[in-house]
């Protein structure tokens, strides 16, 4: 399956999962769907029949609240049956709102509290470098998550140790939990910050699959860790969800669900 089709399916699954389960964060899933689709369709090296294969590329979703999108990507990539997605957020399910590895093949690491993924990813990258192993480590962060100081501890560490095998992807949709990022804790000049911390920065349109594939695939040129700053639209693909704080929380029901699904099917 190509990444365009995978992204469409991730969006539709996540819309249905959050609607049926009554959970939040559909806007955050729609925002990152293209990044995740490109990673699973074209970039990451993995084996669905051997999820813990030692040479797999590691992927950590640090913005764990968008877990529905990862479950959808894993199911569509062949890690477990797609039917299981319908249990999301239900009593007795293995698929919690924030991504968890327990009983779910393919989930590298459980998150949900922000600011945890990058330090762990840096540890994995540091270990791989020590052992001279070739796999890479990808960590997907939200922009609001970059308020967490633990990320900046890891950013310092990764640069100091020249972890060229580490890629931090920021889903930069510019809206965080209560308000726009710029009105909450401003990150700009964001590219400059990463550069000043000695990372190799690649700025891309986070919905352009060709661009994403190119920057996610290309090894570090400088030997420095790589930051992919992906400019995205929160709620991407559903017109009335785009660029709103509301759809960080709201669950699509009834007519809203039907309209959203129709838009995603047309896309």
């Amino acid at each position, binding site marked *: 399956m190509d990444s365009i089709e995978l992204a469409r399916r991730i969006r539709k699954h996540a819309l249905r999962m959050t609607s049926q389960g009554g959970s939040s964060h559909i806007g955050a899933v729609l925002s990152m769907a293209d990044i995740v689709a490109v990673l699973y369709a074209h970039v990451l090296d993995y084996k669905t029949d051997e999820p813990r294969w030692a040479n797999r590329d590691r992927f950590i979703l640090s913005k764990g609240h968008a877990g529905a999108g990862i479950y959808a990507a894993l199911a569509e990539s062949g890690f477990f049956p797609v039917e299981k997605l319908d249990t999301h957020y239900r009593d007795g399910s293995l698929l919690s709102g924030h991504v968890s590895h327990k009983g779910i093949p393919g989930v590298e690491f*459980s998150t949900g509290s922000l600011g*945890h993924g990058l330090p*762990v990813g840096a540890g*994995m*990258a540091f270990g791989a470098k020590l052992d001279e192993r070739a796999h890479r480590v990808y960590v997907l962060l939200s922009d609001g998550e970059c308020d967490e100081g633990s990320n900046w501890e890891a950013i310092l*560490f990764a640069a100091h140790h020249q972890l060229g095998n580490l890629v931090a992807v920021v889903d930069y949709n510019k809206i965080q939990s209560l308000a726009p990022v710029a009105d909450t804790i401003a990150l700009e000049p964001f590219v400059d910050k990463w550069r000043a911390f000695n990372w190799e920065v690649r700025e891309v349109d986070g919905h352009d699959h060709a661009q994403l594939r190119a920057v996610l695939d290309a090894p570090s040129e400088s030997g420095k860790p790589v930051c992919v700053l992906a400019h995205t639209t929160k709620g991407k693909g559903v017109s009335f969800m785009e660029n709103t704080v509301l759809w960080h929380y709201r669950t699509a029901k009834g007519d809203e669900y039907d309209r959203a699904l129709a838009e995603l099917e047309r896309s």
Partner: protein
Amino acid sequence: MRNAFIAELIELAAQDPRILLITADLGFGVFESFAKSHPKQFLNAGVAEQNMTGLATGLALDGRIVFTYSIANFPSLRCLEQIRNDAAYHDANVKVVSIGSGFSYGALGVSHHATEDLAILRSLPTLTVVSPGDEWEVRQATRALIAHPGTCYLRLDKSKAPPSHKPGDVFEIGKARLVRAGTDLTIATCGGILEVALQAADTLAKEHGIHCRILSVHTAKPLDVDALRAAARETGGILALEEHTVNGGLGGAIAESLLELGEIPKRFVRMGLRGGFASAVGSQEYLRKVYGLDAPAVVAQALDIARHNV
């Protein structure tokens, strides 16, 4: 205890390349030997305990046995969520090591008093919590933790009891060590304050004819329920002694376990910290005296128990 720990770890790291020691920029004068003998197994992560614990988890999940190290509450409370969500929830082989339990760094002030860590760490699911009483236990615990899978907390003290192990003694995680036999009263301790228990027991034996059983409950979790049940049944009471708040520490753990089992000791006393922060300034020895945790205080408490048992 710190020197015993590092000496043991140097030996073990030579045998097992999976061992990695990460410090959050502390250990001056102690870690140089490790860094020199095992440069590829040593990492200074800087003054960044959250990142240190995350790094440790990432490294452990790919097969290493990782020790994180700092002093007092820095490697524990500062990064508690990383220990909980990252290391413990993933069953990662991360061994969190803190030097400076209780009032070890007494005169440095409240920021450096590790007096709630046992309660907090033992509440985390899957965590193993070990607080040795002397250097022999430190060495044995270090070795045992490497063989013990999962996330563990090793609480090291500046003070230590004099050697008391006998030939053939076995250290086992989760099994209290019988340091001294006796039936008049049990003193159960956790950590370097074992030395106070031994001093008090000497006085009680020589001056009052009271013979205490002394248990070094080096593993606060999982608790050795069998040894404590036996103490409840066979001795005149249990006095739990810890350089830690009485809320949820060793004494609390013993009380919970025994009450649930319906094993009620004749007398039961928790000796630990009560009330507010220990804001007095002074050495470990001085603060033990100020806060009622020195040998005379233990003797007085034991005599009170003995009077009730007459």
